[in-house]
């Protein structure tokens, strides 16, 4: 065992930490420096009065408002679709599934979790094509189908976090209510789920973040560069991540480039906020678990 070797390793560990932190710091700093100045109401609402825009009385043409609304609607719809299915599946996996079912389904969910998002987007597109050909020619890529595809994307996260939260509950807690005569469902709703609530919430928050940031899926299923606030879920729409991608290759002037930087900052803040709340929930979950047990 070499003192020299050990010193080199120590130096490398410090260096690599410094490199990584610096790299991320440069990314964030670069965005803030370049785009911070553009963060104002005009950026979001263009030439339209904010109140008019918020009440949807007038359309916004030059601002990020439609993209922000698009992202919010997307996330809302996707989670509404994915959460019930995902959480119920997670409950099934943790509480009712036999070992062989667990293994088989678990394998499928792992594959789903590992699939590149563009492949899931491709699936969404395939569904659109299929519906367009065989059901109705009026079916086009739209907000609803994008949200559905995003739901497919985040389903495994919801399943995993629910299953994990429930499986982590100690056996002593699991057996208390049944010993007093409670049924399985009663045990689930009165004891287990409340205890696992934070873990499940953590999964939901992470899924929200995933939906907000994804670009590949929405690129293939209905996001466009210029659509305004959609009047129905069956229309095209704008979204922040797609806007950022679009601007990066198609910006017409300095103003548009600036708005791209600003959009990136907004998206970063949104995801950062979501992530910090997930960390906070996680922290509370851990603390609560220690206190209660």
């Amino acid at each position, binding site marked *: 065992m070499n003192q020299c070797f050990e010193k080199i390793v120590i130096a490398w560990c410090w260096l*690599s930490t410094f490199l990584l932190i610096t790299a991320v710091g440069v990314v964030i700093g670069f965005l803030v420096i370049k785009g911070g100045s553009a963060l104002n109401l005009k950026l979001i609402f263009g030439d339209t009065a904010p109140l008019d825009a918020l009440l949807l009385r007038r359309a916004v043409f030059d601002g990020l408002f439609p993209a922000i609304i698009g992202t919010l609607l997307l996330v809302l719809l996707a989670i509404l679709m994915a959460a019930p299915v995902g959480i*119920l599946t997670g409950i099934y996996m943790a509480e009712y599934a036999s070992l062989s079912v667990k293994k088989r389904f678990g394998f499928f969910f792992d594959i789903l979790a590992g699939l*590149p998002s563009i492949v899931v987007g*491709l699936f969404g597109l395939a569904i659109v094509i299929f519906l367009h050909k065989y059901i109705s020619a009026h079916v086009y890529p739209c907000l609803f189908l994008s949200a559905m595809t995003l739901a497919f994307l985040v389903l495994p996260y919801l399943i995993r976090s629910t299953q994990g939260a429930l499986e982590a509950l100690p056996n002593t807690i699991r057996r208390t209510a049944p010993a007093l005569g409670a049924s399985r469902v009663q045990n689930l709703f009165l004891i287990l789920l409340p205890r696992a609530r934070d873990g499940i919430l953590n999964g939901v928050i992470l899924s929200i973040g995933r939906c907000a940031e994804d670009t590949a899926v929405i690129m293939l299923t209905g996001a466009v560069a210029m659509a305004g606030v959609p009047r129905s879920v069956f229309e095209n729409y704008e979204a922040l991540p797609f806007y*950022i*991608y679009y601007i990066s290759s198609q910006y017409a002037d300095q103003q548009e480039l600036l708005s791209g930087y600003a959009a990136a900052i907004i998206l970063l803040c949104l995801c950062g906020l979501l*992530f910090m709340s997930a*960390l906070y929930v996680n922290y509370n979950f851990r603390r609560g678990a220690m206190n209660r047990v």
Partner: protein
Amino acid sequence: MRMFERSFEKILFTAALLSASITLLIFIFMLVLGLPLFREGLFWDLLSDPWMPQQGLYGIYPMIISTMSIAFLGFLFAFPLSIGVAIFINGLAPGRIGSYVNTAVRLMTGIPTVVYGFVGIFLLIPLMRTILQGGSGMCVLSAALILAVVIAPTMILFFISSFKSVPNAYLRSATALGATPIQKLLYIVVPSSWNGILTGCVLALGRAMGDTMIALMLAGNAVAAPDGIASAARALTAHIALVIAADVNSMAFKSIFACGIVLYVLTAFFTAVLRLTTSRRAAS
């Protein structure tokens, strides 16, 4: 009451069945939409031909090479970095610095890849242009560098949880024998965690191969296979995103389902390998 229990269980099972079937449906849809390729026996050609639609060649071979190059190079950059940071957080960092860096790394996993791509285009690419003296600056190397920063945080967190599961008894005996922190990490913790480290690597490699935005925005998207890290490349994922604009009924369009199938099979393979190795580890 009994009936409610039974129907609730049925609802749960339906949800699970629905979720599991989605995974299968994805593969089936790819297969069905790519069917013309199989009928004419073109599928294997697709895997070895170059992409030249004008000559009727819809091969994705260059894309496969590109995906592998970008992913492996990115992994090559990310792995030593991640081990270094993981060791730093798990014992080398003085005082509370370790936990601050840990939180920073966890926050990093939430940064959208499109944001990295955006910054990459306006910060890294011009730099690459000057360093490589020519070309657009968009190449395998650029994509790999940013990709490394994207996959490193997940790898680091995975390594740390492996390190933490080394039994305390080993560490205590080493301490009593006068081992310094770095000695404990190098000669006990890391060697005991090889399984976890390997799993983390496989996961990261899978993620690197499946990434879309970084490859799409930074690697240049040239249709020819790259002949060096400074040449432009088009990954399978980026290819799918770019060919989408083509006519729905064309062969070109159908070829992207071949890409989808390749990516799907790769993912399934990686997943199976991971499940096997972790179950073996759990058994021992």
